[in-house]
């Protein structure tokens, strides 16, 4: 059995750990996950980090490793699609999400930083397309990652926020079955494709190859879906 080191975007931490467990049990290969913000993982890979595979939170940075010559182009695929949800425990976002946004009675609306996190970017784009962005613009606070944006809401510092569906459906989530949320319809925003690929140093690693296959199996997909992600 082999060991593989895999760099994974922080938002996918729990999901991939679950999948990894199932994988290890089945194949005997060992996986070591390193979690972090996607940009940071990318910088590490560019500077010689010993990762065998890279699971990003978007498509841009995994694809960039191919340009750099560290990523293997043929191994690239989209392993999950994130879904965004509008959450609040104060406002009736489930019934009238756009109304709540338009009235903007809240003090703060948390989103992930549109500049660095795809979830934030999509949330911002969605609000712009619905014409509510100008109403809430002044109330937006940016979390550095989607997890961070979620913390703002979960700790009550922001009354409302665009978070990842995965953070709401997790039974361990502090807001699990508290408050209400509205899943933003897929057709209203460009899909948040999360891309993954094998890196050059993992080219001959049997564990990596096996895992990249395993993650496309129904067993793995089920786990992915159960955490609130969709797949293409």
């Amino acid at each position: 059995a082999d060991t593989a080191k895999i760099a994974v975007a922080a938002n996918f931490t729990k999901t991939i750990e679950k999948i990894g467990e199932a994988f290890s049990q089945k194949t005997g290969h060992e996986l070591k996950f390193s979690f972090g913000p996607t940009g940071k993982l990318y910088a590490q890979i560019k500077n010689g980090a010993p990762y065998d595979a890279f699971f990003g939170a978007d498509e841009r940075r995994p694809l960039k490793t191919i340009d750099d010559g560290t990523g293997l182009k043929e191994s690239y695929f989209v392993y999950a699609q994130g879904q965004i949800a509008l959450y609040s425990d104060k406002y009736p976002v489930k019934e009238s999400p756009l109304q709540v946004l338009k009235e903007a009675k809240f003090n703060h609306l948390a989103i992930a930083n549109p500049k660095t996190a795809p979830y934030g970017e999509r949330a911002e784009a969605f609000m712009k397309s619905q014409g509510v962005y100008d109403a809430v613009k002044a109330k937006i606070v940016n979390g550095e990652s989607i997890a961070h944006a979620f913390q703002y809401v979960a700790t009550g510092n922001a009354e409302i926020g665009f978070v990842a569906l995965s953070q709401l459906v997790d039974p361990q989530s502090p807001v699990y079955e508290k408050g209400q949320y509205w899943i933003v319809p897929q057709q209203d925003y460009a899909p948040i494709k999360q891309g993954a690929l094998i890196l050059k140093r993992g080219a001959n690693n049997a564990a990596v190859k096996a895992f990249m296959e395993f993650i496309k199996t129904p067993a793995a997909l089920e786990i992915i879906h159960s955490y609130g992600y969709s797949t293409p």
Partner: protein
Amino acid sequence: MVEIFGIAVSMDPIWLTLEVAGWTTLILLLLGTPLAWWMARLQSSSKIVLEALVALPLVLPPTVLGFYLLIILNPNGYVTEFLRLFGFEGQLTFSKTGLIVGSVFYSLPFAVQPLMHAFEAVPQKLLDAAATMRANAFDRFFTIAMPLSQRGFLVAATLTFAHTIGEFGVVLMLGGNVPGETRMVSIDIFDHVESLEYDQAHLLSAMMLIFSLCVLMLVYALNRRFGVKVG
């Protein structure tokens, strides 16, 4: 937005950073001085506990500390409720106030430790001498202990200031990265790195380094010039 070497740089985060660092340093010197003086004069074992407590903010990763501060300072929490009693309005998080509160908390050990040790080194005999010249405790503190602890103040101020400039985790967590309000340089640089805008990141970093180097050199030079050596 200004252009430097053809790279667009937003100046807001820079001013904000300087402002927050300045306030934090000022507040910490104001709060830390009496605290350090009091601790320096304590004899009991409670001093040991206090010393350890003061050093604690260092032990938690700033982001985690920020997370807990987020919980403690949330608008429905006890701290905010308590402040409301004094007519405080608004919210501690996502505001400049919040940034300053977080930085003050996080940099506490850098201010208190050097001050305390400087105060402990002030010879008792000199304070005695001042007392025989009718200086009361306050007077002795301001005219003898403080000038003789000048070095301690210098270390405290530079560590605090520099540390607040480079502070990231706490301000990121507490501030909400609102452009023009709570986006500090450290976050700005980080965002540039994250979104692969390395040119801006390099430029901003270089600016911060050069600026800080100048400030620090100025402070140290002034200290050499006017400093006193005791003993």
